[in-house]
C-alpha cells in the first residue's frame, strides 16, 4: 500500500511539470505584460508609486522581456526553491501571500459544499433506489433534475434576491461585516462564519448533489438485484443489514471516485459563485488577477488549484484501494 502511494506521488511530479508549463503559457497568452498594465493602473490611481527603477528591478528579477523559456524557469525555480510565487502587481504584495490568505476560506467553503453534497446525496440516493418509483423517488428525481439544470450563479442570484426581498438580509459574503472578516480567528468569528456559509454551500453543492444522487441511485439499482444480494438474503440477513453491508458498500465505489472530480469542480464552481456572492475566497481575486494580466497571482492560483485536483485524485484512489479489495489486489 505504501509502495502504491509512493509510486503515485512520484507520478505526480511529471504531470505537475507539464501542467505548470501549460499554465504558464496560458497566463502569457494575453497581449501586453503585467508591468506595463501596472503602469497604466498607476496613472489612474496615484496612491502607490513605483519608480522606473523598481520596475526594471522587477523585470530583471522575473526575467521579464527575456525569452519565454527563461521566464518559465525563473518562475518555477522561484516557486520550487524559495516558495516565492512572485509579486502580485494587482494586489501589490507577494502573490504567495495573497494565495495563502485566500486559500483557507476557499477550502473551507469547498469542503463544506463537498460534505453537504455527500451528506445529502447518499441517503437520498439510497432512498430513491430502494423505493424506486415511489413518490419520494419521483420528487427527489425531479428536484435533482432541477438542481442539475439551474446554473449555480443564477441560483446564487435568485437566493440573494429572495434574501433581500423576503428576509431583508443580504446573503453576500461569509461574515456579517468587514471588521469581523479582518479580525483574527476566534470562536465568535467561527460562529459568524457558520451563520453565513450554508447559503454558498448549498448554492455550490447543488449541481454536484443532484448529479451524485443520480449516480448513487443508478449504481444501487444495479447492485440491488445482484446474485450476492439474493444469496445474502437467503442466508437470513435482515433487509437493512443486508442493504448496508452489500449493495450500498458496492455502490460506494463510484461515489468515492467522485471525490476525485467533485472537490476540484466545487473549487471551480466556487469561483463563479464567489464572484456573484462576493465571498472573500479565490474566485473574485482570480478573475481580477486574470483581467489585470497579473501573471504571477493568476498562475499561482491555477497551479495551486491544479495541485489540489491531483491531490484529491490521489486521495480518492487511495480511499478506493482501501475500500475495494479488487483494486488492492489489482484484479
Amino acid at each position, binding site marked *: 500500500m505504501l509502495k502504491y502511494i509512493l509510486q503515485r506521488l512520484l507520478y505526480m511530479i511529471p*504531470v505537475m511539470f507539464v*501542467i505548470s508549463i501549460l499554465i504558464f503559457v496560458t497566463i502569457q497568452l494575453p497581449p501586453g505584460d503585467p508591468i506595463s498594465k501596472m503602469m497604466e493602473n498607476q496613472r489612474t490611481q496615484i496612491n502607490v508609486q513605483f519608480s522606473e527603477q523598481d520596475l526594471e528591478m522587477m523585470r530583471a528579477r522575473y526575467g521579464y522581456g527575456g525569452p519565454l523559456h527563461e521566464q518559465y524557469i525563473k518562475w518555477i525555480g522561484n516557486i520550487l526553491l524559495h516558495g516565492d510565487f512572485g509579486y502580485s502587481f494587482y494586489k501589490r504584495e507577494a502573490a504567495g501571500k495573497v494565495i495563502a490568505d485566500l486559500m483557507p476560506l476557499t477550502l473551507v467553503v469547498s469542503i463544506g459544499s463537498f460534505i453537504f453534497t455527500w451528506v445529502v446525496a447518499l441517503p437520498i440516493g439510497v432512498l430513491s433506489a430502494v423505493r424506486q418509483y415511489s413518490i419520494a423517488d419521483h420528487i427527489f428525481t425531479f428536484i435533482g433534475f432541477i438542481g442539475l*439544470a439551474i446554473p449555480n450563479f*443564477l441560483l446564487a442570484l*435568485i437566493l440573494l*434576491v429572495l434574501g433581500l426581498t423576503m428576509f431583508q438580509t443580504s446573503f453576500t459574503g461569509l461574515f456579517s461585516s468587514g471588521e469581523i472578516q479582518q479580525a483574527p480567528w476566534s470562536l465568535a468569528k467561527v460562529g459568524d462564519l457558520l451563520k453565513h456559509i450554508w447559503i454558498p454551500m448549498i448554492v455550490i453543492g447543488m449541481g454536484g448533489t443532484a448529479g451524485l444522487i443520480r449516480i448513487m441511485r443508478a449504481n444501487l439499482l444495479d447492485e440491488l438485484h445482484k446474485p450476492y444480494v439474493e444469496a445474502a438474503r437467503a442466508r437470513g440477513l435482515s433487509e437493512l443489514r443486508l442493504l448496508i453491508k452489500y449493495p450500498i458498500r458496492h455502490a460506494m465505489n463510484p461515489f468515492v471516485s467522485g471525490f476525485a472530480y467533485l472537490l476540484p469542480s466545487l473549487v471551480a464552481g466556487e*469561483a463563479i459563485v464567489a464572484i456573484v456572492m462576493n465571498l472573500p475566497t479565490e474566485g473574485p481575486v482570480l478573475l481580477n488577477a486574470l483581467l489585470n494580466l497579473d501573471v504571477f497571482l493568476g498562475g499561482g492560483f491555477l497551479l495551486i488549484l*491544479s495541485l489540489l*485536483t491531483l491531490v484529491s485524485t490521489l486521495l480518492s484512489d487511495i480511499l478506493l484501494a482501501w475500500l475495494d479489495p479488487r483494486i488492492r489486489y489489482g484484479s
Partner: protein
Amino acid sequence: MATEANKEANDIVENDEVVLSAEALTMGEAAERVAMASQWQLMWWKFRKHRLALISLVVIIIFYIVSIFAGFFAPKTSDPSVLQTPTYTPPGYTHQSEYVNSPPMPIHWFDSGAFAPYVYAFKKTRDPDTLVETFTIDPETKIRLGFFVHGDKYQVGLHGTPVCPPEWSDNLICIVLNPVLRFVRNIHFTSEVHFFGPVNPEDPFYPVGADEVGRDLLSRLIYASQISLSIGLIGVALTLLLGILLGGLSGLVGGWVDNLIQRSIEVLRAIPDIPLWMALAIAMPPKLDPVFVYFGITIILSLLRWTDMARVVRGKFMSLREEDFITAAVLDGVPRYRIIMKHMVPSFMSHIIASMTLSIPGMILGESALSFLGIGLRPPVVSWGVMLSKAINVVVVISKPWLLLPGLAIFVTILAFNFLGDGLRDAADPYHT
C-alpha cells in the same frame, strides 16, 4: 441406490450439447420480434416509453425552430443604426427611448367577448414624493396585436455566415473560401411577416419587458437563442470530433500512442475547468471580431470536455476488441477500417449520441457563465449569458426581475437536454431490461 438410472447416467455424456438442445432457443414471439428489429428500432421503442424525454425532444425541436426562424418569431427586428463589424451584423431591434426599462405588458386576448388580442400602452408618471419614474397602464391607448402581422424586415437563412474581412483579401485561403462563403451567405430569404406582434409596426410591444435602451426583451431572447443553442451543438461536435479521433486512436492503436493520449488526458483533467476557461477567455483580444470570439469560446469550452468523450470511446473500443463478433470479422479477413466503420462504430454510436446530448448542457452553462462574468461573448453579440450579465447586480434584479428571463431560458433548455439525454441513454441499451 445404485439403480438402473444411475447406470444410465454413466452413459450420458455431460456435455455442453445437452445444455444447448434444451436451453438454446428459449425466446418467444415478442423476443423474436425483438431479435428481428434493428438496433435503431429497438432504441425508438424504448425511448418512446420515456415520457419526459419525449416531451423534452419536442421542446428542444420547438426551441431550435424558433431559433432558426428568429426573425419570424421575434416581434421586432433589426435597426441598422446598431453597431456592426465587417463580418457581423448583430440582431438589433427597434427601440423606443420612452420605453427604456419598461416592465412586461400583459396581453389581453379578448376584447368585449371576441378574440382580439391587445395590450395597453404605458405612460410614465413620476411619484411626487420619491421622484421615481414608474410605468402605469394607459387605459386610453389599446395596441392591437395579431398573428402574421407585417412589421420590420428580417432575413432568415445563412446570411450570418462570416466572410473574410477586406483587409485579408490577398490571403490564399480567403481567395478560395470567400466565393463559397458568399454563396452560402446568399441562401436566405427576406420577409416582413411576423408570427405575432402589433398590427401597426410602429406601436410599442413589450410582452416581457424592455432593456436599458428600450429594446424588446422577447425579441432579444429569441435572437440570443441562436448563439446559446448553437454554441452547445458546435462545441459538442468539436468535442465529439476530438474525442472520437483521439479516443479511437488510443483504443485502436494502443501502445505508446495510447500512453501519450492517456497522459495528456490526465494532465488536462487535473486543470480546474472554470479558472482555465477564465484564463483562456481573457487571453482573447477584446477587439477581436465577434465571430472569432464565438468560435474561440466554443474551442475553449471543448478543449477540456473532449477528454470525457475520448475515455468513453476508448473504453468502448477496448472492450469491443475482445468481443466475439469482432474476432469473427478479423478471422474472416475483413479489412480493418471496415471492421471499425461497419461493426465497431455502429455498436457504440447510440452511447455516443446519448453522452453527447448530456454534454450539451455543460457547454451552454459554460458559455453563459463566461458571458455572465463579462469575459465570454460581449455585446453587440447577444446570447442568454450576455443578457444575464445585466442582472449581475442584485439591486437591479429586484427592481427589474424580468431581466432574469434568460436564466429561465437556460434552465428550460438544460432541463430538456438532460431529460432527453437520460431517455437516450436508457434507450441506447435496448437489450438491457
